[in-house]
């Protein structure tokens, strides 16, 4: 039995000795051949991250991104063959990666990108009930399975948009907190909407099982300004499911 553990270890650790028992019949050394596997593994995973986080890459530049991704790949390789789960761990890594601390918003922008991937693959809504009675205020709302809130003290939607190529990069005049709602709309497009702190609270209360009326009241009490009409339009656009208050549905 050859040493599989040594082979696996040396794939991620460029300084590790070559595993025993390798054979090359023609041409170069086993080192050169093993380097192909090393490169496939490490570069392949870095490429996958670069593809998943284009705005994050644009903010820090290709060289810095690849160096950062390499540290992530070597220290925390994927635990599943489904690579989009690997991407979900990248923002958490950025939170704790000292060289990335210089750019305070970086991990939160990466969170938007991770949420977009997640939203693409999320479940479809079960048959929409929308049995709206007269009593809208008493309705409960289930957000679409693709909906993800990303909270941040930075203007992350503006920064993400500028670096995702959706608008020109321009100096940010007003550096204020932005919360993002990421979701898949009825046309299967992934949307990133900037929402106020009050709307973010409103959405969280709905997720916690509050009725529309309760969630609106609490958001208003906590944040002062709260635009219910806009919040309702956002719920409709993001394919939220409204249902009559049976008391049984609280998710």
């Amino acid at each position, binding site marked *: *039995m*050859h040493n*599989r*553990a040594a*082979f*696996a270890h040396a*794939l*991620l650790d460029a300084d590790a000795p070559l595993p025993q*028992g*390798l*054979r*090359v*019949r*023609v*041409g*170069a*050394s*086993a080192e*050169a*051949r*093993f380097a*192909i*596997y090393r490169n*496939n*593994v490490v570069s*392949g*995973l870095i490429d*996958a991250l670069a593809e998943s986080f284009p705005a994050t890459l644009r903010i820090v530049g290709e060289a810095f991104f690849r160096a950062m991704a390499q540290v992530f790949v070597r220290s925390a*390789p*994927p*635990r*599943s*063959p*489904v*690579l*989009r789960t*690997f991407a979900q761990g990248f923002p958490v890594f950025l939170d704790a990666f000292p060289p990335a601390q210089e750019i305070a918003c970086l991990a939160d922008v990466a969170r938007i990108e991770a949420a977009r991937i997640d*939203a*693409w*693959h*999320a*479940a*479809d809504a079960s048959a929409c009930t929308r049995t709206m009675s007269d009593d809208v205020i008493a309705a409960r709302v289930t957000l679409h*399975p*693709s909906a993800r809130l990303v909270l941040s003290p930075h203007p992350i939607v503006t920064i993400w948009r500028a670096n995702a190529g959706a608008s020109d990069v321009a100096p940010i005049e007003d550096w204020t907190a932005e919360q993002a709602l990421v979701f*898949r709309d009825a046309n*299967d497009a992934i949307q990133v909407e900037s929402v106020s702190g009050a709307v973010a609270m409103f959405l969280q209360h709905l997720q916690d099982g509050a009725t529309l009326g309760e969630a609106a009241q609490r958001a208003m009490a906590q944040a002062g300004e709260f635009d219910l009409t806009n919040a309702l339009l956002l719920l409709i656009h993001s394919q939220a499911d409204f249902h009559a208050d049976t008391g049984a549905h609280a998710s």
Partner: protein
Amino acid sequence: MTHHGHLPPRAGVGFKPAHFPEIVAAAQPPAFFEVHAENYMGAGGPSHRQLERLHAIAALSVHGVGLSIGGDAPLDADHLAALARLCERHQPECFSEHLAWSTHDGAFFNDLLPLPYTRATLDRVCAHIDQTQTVLRRRMWLENPATYLLFDASEMSETDFLRAVVRRTGCGLLLDINNVVVCAANHGFEARDYLAAFPLDAVQEIHLAGHDEQRDEHGHALLVDTHDRPVCDDVWRLYAEVIATTGPLPTLIEWDNDVPAWSVLARQAERADAILLREAVDA
């Protein structure tokens, strides 16, 4: 085992979402599409809807790249269950995986890594294929790998190893002719000798792809299985020879990196179809 339809003995292509609009607008789409299983393991969303649309106009092949059939440890039960759900949901005409490992000690390396061909490896590979076929309730096809290294510990040839796997598990084989050409150059053997020793009667599908030719530090050719360009002439020649022996077989054009315009990929499939058609007429 549940009865499934078959891939038609025609040309298919690896599906890339960027090509979707042109595929559904095409007057004559390819006979089948192949997708990597791991890209379709989300709970829902547009990717599943695309797959349903494709399967309405063509046959569907699900090709796994992450099961780690050659792994030391037991198969990842969660991953196998996800494969079963995918096959249950889309009812593909076939499922295939690789003679390789990609996971060790819980870490997934996202590459198809090489195995020593020993009796111990054979036992493990066969047990993993038995388990996969039982859970998926279907026969699977096993693909010959592209490799860059050999092992001192190997006790048999790759073709003998594959023949034994087929005998013990009843699985079919997926013959990747580009992988044969890559290995022949990298390990110093004749591709035709390998194909002559290959259990061709077990082959259910063929893969064709492009590779990169590099030079090592001694000036020897080193071929890397890159799937980033057209199929080379050597591979086309060997393909025609294999088809002349086996008769027409489902044939996939794999192009995963630097993905070309749909028309370029479609022309590669047409070239394979022309060879298949000629063989069907001659037979």
